[in-house]
């Protein structure tokens, strides 16, 4: 029994090292004073400072944040409405839509990217920041819908009946009962959608045109000319934002009500 547990914890530690080792190395080397070297030449924050003076990088950051913000907002509105609407549908149709929602999550993202690019070109939409936003909304809607729907289905239907019984019309039921009870799921979905949008590479790669460069795209283009400590610093920052968002998302969703 005890030996079994010990074996298990050794395996878990190995898995954790395998998962987070490379990331840890990256973060540690973002503080390395040496340029283009794996040798340690002392601790510094100069690469982080350098990031702040890189005009192109700041532009990419602004793009990333704007795209994440707009696509999150769009996906949350659409996904939330879809989740609410599905509740009213007959069971069979709900299942059909659910199937359709899962599909974009399982098909290879390269395909999604190519398909979206072809679709936008067909529509004669110039590739740029707008098409990236639309692309991100497309993959975020299923995420948001599924997260809100999960919560919605866990709500006791008697709560909404009780509100109606106490004199609330359908808008008041939504405003005073359904919406407050969905709030944790909505915030959770917002944070996850924001993170996924911020981190996305493939769909962005295919749908971005001039002026649509995001942080992950920027990192990719910088890597072509060699891994610099600036990239390490930038990646560490991205990592920090993403992990904060995910942790916050888990936290708000765990909170009861």
């Amino acid at each position, binding site marked *: 029994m005890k030996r079994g547990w010990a074996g298990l914890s050794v395996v878990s530690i190995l898995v954790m090292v395998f998962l987070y080792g490379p990331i840890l190395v990256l973060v540690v080397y973002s503080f390395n004073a040496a340029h283009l070297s794996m040798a340690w030449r002392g601790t510094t924050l100069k690469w982080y400072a350098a990031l702040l003076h890189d005009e192109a990088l700041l532009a990419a950051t602004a793009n990333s944040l704007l795209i994440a913000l707009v696509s999150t907002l769009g996906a949350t509105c659409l996904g939330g409405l879809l989740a609410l609407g599905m509740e009213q549908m007959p069971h069979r149709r709900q299942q059909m839509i659910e199937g359709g929602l899962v599909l974009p999550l399982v098909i290879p993202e390269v395909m999604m990217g190519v398909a979206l690019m072809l679709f936008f070109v067909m529509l004669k939409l110039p590739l740029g920041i707008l098409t990236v936003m639309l692309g991100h909304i497309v993959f975020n809607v299923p995420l948001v819908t599924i997260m809100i729907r999960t919560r919605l289905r866990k709500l006791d239907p008697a709560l909404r009946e*009780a509100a109606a*019984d106490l004199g*609330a019309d359908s808008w008041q039921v939504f405003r005073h009962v359904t919406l407050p009870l969905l709030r944790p799921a909505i915030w959770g979905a917002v944070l996850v959608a924001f993170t996924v949008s911020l981190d996305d590479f493939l769909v962005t790669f295919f749908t971005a045109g001039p002026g649509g460069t995001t942080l992950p795209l920027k990192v990719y283009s910088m890597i072509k000319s060699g891994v610099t400590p600036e990239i390490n610093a930038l990646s560490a920052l991205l990592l920090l934002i993403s992990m904060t968002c995910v942790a916050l998302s888990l936290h708000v969703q765990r909170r*009861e*009500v």
Partner: protein
Amino acid sequence: MATSSTPPFIAFDQSLLPTPSTIDVRGIVRRHGAVLAVDQVSFQVRRGEFFSILGPSGAGKTSVLRMLAGFEDPDEGDLLIDGQSMLGVPPNRRPVNLVFQSYALFPHLTVFENVAFGLKMRRVASALIEAQVRQALTMVKLFGKEARRPAQLSGGEQQRVALARALVNKPAVVLLDEPLAALDQQLRQAMQVELKSIQQQAGLTCVCVTHHQEEAMMMSDRIAVMHQGRMWQVGSPREVYERPCNLFVSRFLGVSNELPGRMGGPIGEDRLFQPIDADQPPLTVRTLTSEQAGRPATLSLRPEQLRMARERPMTSGPVLSGRIEKVLFAGSDTKYLVRVGPERVWETRMTSDASLPSFTAGDPVFLHWSLPDGRLFFE
């Protein structure tokens, strides 16, 4: 000089006066797919009355309640509250409030906000809301817990909040869906008494759905027994218990000791009854109707109507012989299971009083009862 055509004297029944009935249900039918959930149900509830709909699960009683609340519409029939038809009126515009079985308290609101919800929806002035909520909370003895969340309350307290949340709106009718089902036995009994006293104090009209026969009998002014979508009998608890209209009602409201047999010939003003078990001699029975001899019937008796003796009692009334099969001590009472036929065991109860003669398993005994207590049911 009475002739045979004069109607018999009928005792003056208060209920025949045209007292305002708050609820008037007229032949409602409700289908769930191919299943007839509610089949031609009609009843009236008077103002200030505690009316229970009693039945096993699946009897259709919850459907009736949901139709009163407005969550379902009847497929046929009409449903009036205070003289107004409620057909097509949505739940938020009906003068009724439902206390849900799960309480359905809003988990994101405090006790105060939960109780104030109905008043807020009707845009009552906030000063008035404050006063009325306090009054309602005082009534259910929850004063001082306004700031708590439902999750911080015990089951009994949650039940009181649910009640206060309904009462504060001063509805014409309070609908109760298995109000005490989620409470443990002791709390349940205390709440029965309390619920009843709140109802009487406030003069509330209540319609309560329950499958718990004892609860229904203790709290109700009248009980309606439902089974398979139909309402079989409506009457005071004593009426339905002592004079059930059929074997189902008899069995559902308590222990029914039964003996199938056939009607025999007259014996004086009464009749003979031949039990189906050949080794039992015919019994005397009393019936108001003149049933044909040979008609199959079932005799039924409540455990407390039976008396048990070691010697054959010196009575001209009905006597059944048997043998004690089990003695079940249950505190203040002792239950005796008496075998009266090859496939028939009757139950009787006696106070667990040490000064009374005690019986043990295996004792041959005689069960007897007073003639009018024996009830006959015909197929």
